[in-house]
């Protein structure tokens, strides 16, 4: 193939997605976005539409009855859904990142493979339980550990009790992926992931979710009480899963949904500027607000290019290539896109003026801004940048790879 580099291939691949577009569920998400935000409730309609359309099982391989979608397919869905409703996009992204961990690390173990097949059939929503009281927000520490059942207990499965500070959409999920120490005498960093099915656990709500934005993710605090057999613990240690799959896939999917939120904000701001101009009969040349629209678009195009290159570097969850993606590059995708999208929506607000500042009407940008303020905060950018700084003395950034 002459003259067609990786970039040309990427463009060709983007032009012909293997999976059909997602218009239906995205429209449902948009229709209910305002109510979800106002009432701070789970985006039930959007998730039901995604379930109905078979989109929740996107990453499950064909061998297990799924569509065998790529990570890029999942990113496109998160983008499209978030363009209508940021909370729904975030729920979808977090679900896909958990599913990616299962797909990449289930190996040939029967339990997780059966779960994946069932998840496709029944449209099960999978939530993450990595947060815990007392670990200082460190993903790589757990206090929770399996306790063996009493000798006279008819149910010989282990007990797990975890006090989670946040389980996004915990009350609405069908299953949980929960991190815990490998055994009661294991160190805090010696963790495994437990896959808990619908009948394996109960939740006791211990804290609410009254936030500025992303109000529909319902990331409340719960005590999880579970019974699980040894076969429900993934054989790959959580340290590898977190670095090779959970963190990079999460940041890639988040970038997609953040760009989706900002894309809708740009649409709204363009409409506001255009509407004003038509009324005034003025020319588009030098029209007020247009430089701000251009500034927003410039940031978003750069963010999207960064995401596209991250997708190409990472490949598919579980692949040999994915295990070697530089952690600094994953970090930089996150810090850069979270701030670029937030900045872009700020530019959109200035362009739209009062029409954007109002909290009602077709040009309102309040929800977009509030939702996107979660981006630099969830996993704080300052902490990520400190890690990136240290990593600058490790492997060098791979510049020139796509040129």
């Amino acid at each position, binding site marked *: 193939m002459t003259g067609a580099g990786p970039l040309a291939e990427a463009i060709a691949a983007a032009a012909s997605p293997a999976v059909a577009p997602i218009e239906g569920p995205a429209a449902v998400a948009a229709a209910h976005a305002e109510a979800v935000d106002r009432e701070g409730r789970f985006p039930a309609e959007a998730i039901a539409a995604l379930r109905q359309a078979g989109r929740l099982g996107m990453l499950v391989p064909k061998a297990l009855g799924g569509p065998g979608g790529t990570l890029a397919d999942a990113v496109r869905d998160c983008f499209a859904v978030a363009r209508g409703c940021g909370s729904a996009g975030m729920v979808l992204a977090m679900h896909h990142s958990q599913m990616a961990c299962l797909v990449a690390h289930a190996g040939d173990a029967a339990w997780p493979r059966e779960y994946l097949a069932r998840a496709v059939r029944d449209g099960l929503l999978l939530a993450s339980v990595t947060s815990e009281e007392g670990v200082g927000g460190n993903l*790589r520490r757990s206090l929770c550990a399996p306790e063996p059942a009493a000798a006279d207990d008819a149910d010989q499965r282990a007990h797990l009790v975890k006090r989670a500070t946040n389980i996004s959409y915990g009350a609405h999920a069908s299953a949980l992926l929960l991190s815990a120490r490998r055994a009661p005498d*294991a*160190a*805090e*960093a*010696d963790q495994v992931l437990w896959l808990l099915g619908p009948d394996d656990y109960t939740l006791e709500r211990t804290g609410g979710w009254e936030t500025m934005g992303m109000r529909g993710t319902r990331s409340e605090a719960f005590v999880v009480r579970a019974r699980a057999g040894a076969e429900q613990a993934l054989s790959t*240690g*959580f*340290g*590898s899963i977190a*670095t*090779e799959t959970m963190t990079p896939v999460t940041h890639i999917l988040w970038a997609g949904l953040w760009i989706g939120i900002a894309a809708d904000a740009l649409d709204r701001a363009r409409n506001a500027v255009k509407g004003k101009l038509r009324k005034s009969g003025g020319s588009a040349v030098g029209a007020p607000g247009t430089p701000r629209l251009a500034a927003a678009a410039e940031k978003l195009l750069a963010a999207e290019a960064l995401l596209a290159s991250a997708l190409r570097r990472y490949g598919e969850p579980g692949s040999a290539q994915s*295990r*070697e993606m530089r*952690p600094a590059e994953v970090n930089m995708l996150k810090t850069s896109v979270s701030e670029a999208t937030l900045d872009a929506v700020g530019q959109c607000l200035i362009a739209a003026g009062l029409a954007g500042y109002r909290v009602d009407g077709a040009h309102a940008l309040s929800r977009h801004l509030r939702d996107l303020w979660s981006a630099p905060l969830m996993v704080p950018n300052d902490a990520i940048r400190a*890690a990136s700084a*240290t*990593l600058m*003395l*490790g*492997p*060098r950034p791979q510049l020139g790879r796509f040129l």
Partner: protein
Amino acid sequence: MTGIETAVRDALASRARLSSDAKAIGAEDDLFDRGLTSLMTVDVMLALEERFDLEFPEEALTRNSFRSVASLRDLLVSLGANA
């Protein structure tokens, strides 16, 4: 245990905060499952480069190089380290 392996364990003990004793860990045990992070690998690399007066080549800076005591030992041997 070779001198190189001992040096690897020393570097892990002093520069990485592992969940188990670096001196007692199995040579093939997965260090990432024992608390090693990408950030710690940078300091482990710096310590070993200084100890053996060599430089890890760019292509050796992969997760697999740091996965176990044995993989680090083998890497150092291939780089011509002398204990």
